């Protein structure tokens, strides 16, 4: 069966520090991968998605970047965090198209102080 992992689960970082969140998927090949951000009490905002290694599409211009160095690995990064980067970050995967069922990881709670 397929599983999706995210780490760390929680992170507290000072403003201006770098960020690296990792997401890995097991049990499937060539998945579509997604990064979402969820502000407190809000819906999900799609940040990035990837249809293959090295292929990244950005949905919202911001202080963040994404990379896909391996088929089942998706990384969310920032060189300098802002207070507004605080939130709950969710990684998800789907078999092929974005409109397919998406399967979510457990999320990372990021607090920027």
């Amino acid at each position: 069966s397929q599983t999706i992992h995210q780490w760390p689960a929680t992170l507290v970082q000072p403003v201006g520090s770098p960020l690296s969140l990792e997401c890995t998927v097991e049990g499937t090949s060539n998945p579509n991968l997604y990064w979402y951000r969820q502000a407190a009490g809000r819906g999900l905002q799609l940040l990035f998605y990837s249809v293959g290694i090295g292929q990244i599409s950005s949905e919202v211009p911001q202080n963040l970047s994404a990379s896909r160095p391996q088929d089942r690995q998706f990384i969310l990064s920032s060189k300098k965090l802002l207070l507004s980067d605080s939130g709950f970050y969710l990684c998800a995967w789907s078999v092929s198209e974005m409109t397919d069922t998406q399967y979510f990881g457990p999320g990372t709670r990021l607090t920027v102080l």
Partner: protein
Amino acid sequence: SQQGEEDPQALSIQEGENATMNCSYKTSINNLQWYRQNSGRGLVHLILIRSNEREKHSGRLRVTLDTSKKSSSLLITASRAADTASYFCAKGDKNTGNQFYFGTGTSLTVIP
């Protein structure tokens, strides 16, 4: 905005009662999906209903879709305390380049 809205934003019911949540959207869709999110956790997929379908069931869940009204509803029958969560609808619209939009969610509290 292409994002739809869930209605109500919050719902509180007694255990055993039915809970109904609604989702509206503005553009065309290929499918509409419902997800559940327990506090501080990831989302769990519940049901996918395609644009040519009108109703789907899964256990105590019933989803309807009315494309003429651009709306969908999620009914949870005989609710349990464990159903307490936020429920989101997500709209799949291939016509705008494989777009997938989440609504803002309904927070459901089931009181034991």
